[in-house]
């Protein structure tokens, strides 16, 4: 024999963004902290060792911030002009930075004055970095050259002048202490081996290269330039693996997350896009206030820091994990209450009386089960249901309508309740998924409470608002119909050219949009 069937709450597929694991993960950051710097921020670099301080290069200063500090812990300001690309060494003890005047300076984190200064570039040096053997530094400058420096002796080891335009980005291989890569405005990315005199590989990006990145495995190279992010297979001799065009302005910075599963790109179009490195599809994206110049992600993805052209540093910290202490505080029943009677083995002569499984009904279901329609409607007009799950409210209204008791459930209410009902109807009647039911409800309410119109200012106001909302919706629908008419005309002209094939498409497309209109 059948038991009571609860009201079916229709699930409508959500339009727009789908909620995936990624969106949940990347949404798990607190509201950003904004720090104002003096000029546009060209580089943010995290210290690879705990406590993961980060160096921000802006204008003529390098600021070092602690993880949660709003004020710099330390400042290096021995630059006459702009400083560029302050980068930590692997052990987090040394910091190297280029400068507008062409000199490269090496700082000790604990000290203040530069330990070494490498002079040789004739123009500004926009990119510097340590090789993974820790004792050499590579650099690229606006004089089209890429150079390699020895730290102990502060001398130039080798200079490559293969690029034909400014060298603006570069990175070193983490696996091989001799390999580094530079990207240039001459649309190429070059891979250098310090043991050879010339570059070992040249990759044509097709746009001025703004940023390069090597995967931890060293096999894949990512270059950004123009609106494109391109991924190259280095081991296959620089074959293009995939080209991503998800930004609509120049991509300025690239970054990998700590697991290497996600690639982040920041762009002048104010977006940071996150790609899956398995499918190279955008899995999430962030919006920022102004154009993005630099981007960094702390180890364990704890913090995302974005530097922007207007000198604002945007810092987002991850929300702490939901602590489970709360539930632990609540005293649980003792273990023996759980096992009570459960470990009894029935003897052979015992009759086993099975306990019927209890199904838990929601409050409105219980009331509907006992045919208390007015109370059931009250139950779903509670604020938490009305506001957060309006589909439940509407489903119960539909059920009451099906049972033929909606009218009596709506009748006999006081001013406050009518006003509440009308507010709900006014707000939701324009949602296509609720429209059919709520129009019936609105009809019934006006029918029932017509005689008392004019007695309460509150209710009258709500009625006017309802009228207004419906009027607006009608206007909107008319506009839509006009657009449809125009599209019909357009399709009609198209079908003249290719009569048979497109006719079908037309009906197909149109009815589909109409369907959506009706059913969503």
């Amino acid at each position: 024999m059948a038991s009571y069937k609860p009201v079916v709450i229709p699930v409508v597929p959500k339009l727009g963004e789908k909620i995936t694991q990624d969106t949940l993960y990347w949404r798990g950051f607190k509201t950003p902290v904004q720090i104002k710097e003096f000029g546009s921020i060209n580089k943010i670099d995290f210290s690879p060792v705990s406590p993961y301080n980060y160096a921000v290069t802006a204008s003529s200063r390098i600021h070092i911030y602690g993880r949660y500090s709003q004020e710099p812990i330390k400042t290096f300001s021995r630059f006459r002009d702009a400083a560029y690309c302050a980068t930590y060494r692997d052990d987090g003890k040394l910091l190297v930075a280029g400068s507008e005047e062409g000199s490269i300076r090496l700082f000790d984190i604990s000290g203040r004055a530069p330990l070494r200064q490498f002079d040789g570039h004739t123009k500004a040096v926009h990119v510097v970095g340590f090789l993974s053997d820790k004792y050499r530094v590579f650099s690229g400058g606006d004089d089209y050259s890429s150079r390699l420096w020895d730290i102990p002796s502060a001398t130039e080891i080798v200079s490559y002048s293969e690029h034909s335009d400014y060298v603006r980005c570069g990175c070193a291989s983490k696996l091989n202490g001799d390999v580094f890569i530079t990207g240039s405005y001459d649309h190429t990315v070059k891979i250098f081996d310090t043991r050879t005199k010339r570059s070992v590989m040249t990759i044509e990006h097709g746009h001025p290269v703004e940023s390069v990145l090597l995967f931890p495995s060293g096999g894949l190279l990512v270059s950004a330039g123009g609106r494109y992010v391109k991924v190259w297979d280095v081991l296959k001799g620089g074959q293009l693996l995939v080209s991503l065009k998800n930004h609509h302005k120049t991509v300025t910075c690239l970054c990998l997350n700590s697991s290497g599963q996600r690639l982040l790109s920041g762009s002048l179009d104010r977006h940071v896009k996150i790609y899956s490195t398995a499918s190279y599809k955008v899995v999430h994206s962030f919006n920022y206030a102004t154009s993005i110049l630099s981007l960094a992600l702390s180890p364990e993805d704890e913090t995302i820091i974005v530097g922007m052209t207007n000198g604002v540093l945007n810092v987002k910290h991850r929300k702490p994990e939901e602590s489970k202490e709360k539930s632990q505080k609540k005293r649980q029943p003792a273990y023996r209450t759980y096992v009570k009677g459960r470990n009894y083995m029935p003897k052979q002569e015992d009759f086993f009386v099975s306990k019927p499984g209890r199904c838990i009904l929601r409050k409105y279901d219980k009331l509907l089960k006992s045919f208390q329609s007015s109370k059931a409607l009250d139950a779903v007009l509670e604020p938490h249901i009305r506001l957060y799950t309006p589909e439940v409210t509407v489903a119960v209204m539909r059920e009451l309508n099906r049972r033929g008791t909606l009218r009596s459930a709506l009748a006999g209410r006081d001013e406050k309740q009518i006003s509440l009902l009308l507010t709900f109807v006014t707000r939701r009647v324009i949602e296509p998924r609720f429209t059919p039911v709520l129009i019936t409800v609105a009809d019934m309410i006006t029918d029932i409470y017509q005689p008392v119109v004019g007695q309460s200012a509150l209710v009258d106001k709500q009625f006017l608002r309802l009228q207004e909302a419906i009027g607006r919706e009608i206007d909107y629908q008319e506009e839509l119909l006009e657009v449809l008419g125009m599209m019909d005309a357009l399709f009609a002209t198209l079908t003249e050219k290719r009569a048979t094939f497109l006719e079908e498409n037309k009906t197909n497309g149109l009815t589909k949009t109409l369907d959506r209109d009706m059913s969503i």
Partner: protein
Amino acid sequence: MVAPAALRVVRCGGSALHGARAVFSLAGGRRAPSDPAGPSRPSSLCRFLLCASGDFVKMYSVATEELVRLLRGHSDLVTGVQLAPHNHLQLYSCSLDGTIKLWDFTDGILIKTFTIGYKLLALYALPTSEDSVFVIIPKRGERDTFQLASVKLTKAAGQDTEAKEVSVVLEGVDVSPKCTAFGRECEYVASVKGTNLQVYFFKRKQLNRFSLRAKTAKGGNNVFTCVACHPQEDCIATGHADGKIRLWRNFNHKKEYTYSTLHWHHDRVMDLAFSAEGTSLLSGGVESVLVQWHSGSDCKKDFLPRLGSAIEYVSISSDSTFCCTSHTDNRITIINSNLRFSKTIQGLIKAREVKTGLVVDPRTKALVLNGEPGHLQFYCLQTDRQLYSLDIVQQEYIHQAGLNQSDLVRVAFSAQGKWLATVEERKETDLELQLKLWFFDEKTQSFKLNTRISMPHEDRITAMCFRDTDELEDDSLMLVTAGRDCVFKVWVILEDTDPEAQQSLSWSCDFVGSYHNYQATNCCFSEDGSLLAVSFGETVTVWDSSTWDLKCTFCHPPGKIRNICFGRLTCSKYLIGATDHGFLCCWNLLSCALEWSAHLNIIVLQPDPLSEHIAAVSWLLKESSLFVFKPSEPRPICIQRKLCKEKIQFAAFVPRDVPETIGSEKYLWLRRSQLFFLTDRQELMTVSTKPLEERLTLSSKQLAVEESLPVTAFSLLLGKHRHQQSQGSVDFGKVIHHHHEQDSPAVKELLHTPAHVLPSASFLCPIFINSLLISKENKSAEEVPDEVEMESEEAEDDSDEENNVTETKQEDTVPIESLGETTYKLSKSEEKELRKIRKVDYSWISVF
């Protein structure tokens, strides 16, 4: 017996079970007569439920809900079933054919037939009057007036007697058996009709009439619907059309009567029943809730809700351990005394309206159609049982008159039965439509909802079909729905590549086609799935199912297309259509021309999935006729006129498990599948060439099941003991002889026939003594096999396996012992002689 192979129409699926109140047999009733030493089993196991069903009385086991016996003999609808008051193993049944029959229901023997000569509409057998029963009969000369009469049943010997002593007790009673009831110790009879209650006291010969106003001040409807009398006190309960129950007391005074009112039902009270001690009153109505009112306090009542459909009758066993409710949808629910649902007995459930048509589930070969409201029933034709009922609408059904509820209107299965598509609709001010697609889950062996599409069409869906390709590729699967909103839509499976999604498959619309803004009425795929035919008004359009190009159109003006189907196998180049102007047309798809047409008002067109035959049912002059034809030739293979008087709504070919052997070439189309059809009164019928007897044996074989079911420790013990005995009998030839004597038919008959039907002992004695004598050779050989055959019928009914075993033994042993050998030898020698003669003859001819 193959020669007279005439096509006969056979009812199947059982008739309505709610013809009359069902009756419980008494507890501890003597159990299967086949085991005389048999133990008396726990009382609940021995219980039977007897109910009228069409022309038969059906006997069900309460414990197993199995059909145990079918009492057939009446030639018209059975209207009343009552246990004989003085012998609880006997049963009276009355029928519209004017007879009362007395049965021994444990053995299924018809004891007596009393011919009354009136149409009998209800039967009441009372414990106080031994030889007379009360019946409701129509009044001579007046239509729609009925009277309660008592009939004296003569004790004359002989099977058929006429009972002509009919004396009228009450005039102007209601035709329904619910409207008359007999009171405590049969002192009075109460009968209601309209707004009048009349009580007649037998001893005082006094008739009291009470009447109510038709309408109360509050708008209640006071019309009586049923009446029941308290078994111990002077109290009458009456049910009313507005849901009230009134308890009348003190009604032996004309003026000072009192009544109290109980009110819970919101609609007509359908039936009332007092428990045996009168401590509680059961009432049932349209709400399908059984209400138990306790007599002590007025307000205390218990409910058993959601019984499925409106309650027609309520009856209680004489010791109140069980009660049962008969429902309007052809179902009986057995309920324990503590108002716990126990069992249901159900055959083909009668929906209010069958809209889905007859569909065959390819997986179980079950017939699928509307069942309970919002459910789909899977009905097994072989066992005459409902396999299961699938809840499609998944909404609480409110049993209330005048409500628009969602109803199932279309059903389609994919070729392998893997997908099921259903359409439900609810029409109020605007139409609510839902298309649901169900996937068969192998693990749980049931259908699981996969996709729900609300408002797939703007208007009603008129037809729906899957592309029936037998390949197992899923991507070739598509569903077409045709709607009154002038389009047909093609739905295909979409695979969601996202691994985190809940389900990977879902359905979505692929193509929308229309033709000159005509309403799409039918759709049908060709056998290979390459062509789709959709009928729009008067026109049939044929579409290529891969590119969705319109290939060609056919029409046969001025009639609108009613049915279309493609030919199969060798006839796959033909398209058949029936128009509502009475034409059956066959178009050739290769030449795009009309091949032939016939002037027939076809209402049902059904192709056989396993052959090229197509069955068409026409409706002309209030008679349905069946035509079976091949599309390739305009001459029908088989014509069966006057199939039945009712309009046939739907038909379906159900594949047979084993191809049947059919003698006549005319009926070869019945070889591989069987044709079922449903009339507009929801009678399921089939056509068969087999004579009646063969079919009936099938149903009687079912009885064997019942016996083997209840196993108690004692029966196990006994069974073991017997098993050993029979084992022993195999080993020692001497014992066989002994057994043979024991089981001689006369002795068996003596032992197994119920004592109350046996003739007097003096008559039986010589037979018994004779049977104990050691028989001489010839006699036993001649007679025994003959009688064994008779016996075996009974044995089958009683279905005691041990007995069967010994009996076969007997048959084996008899010819060997006795005269068998001599005749055998004779025939052999004769044969030899004959052979010799033949040889000579043949050689002689060949030489010549």
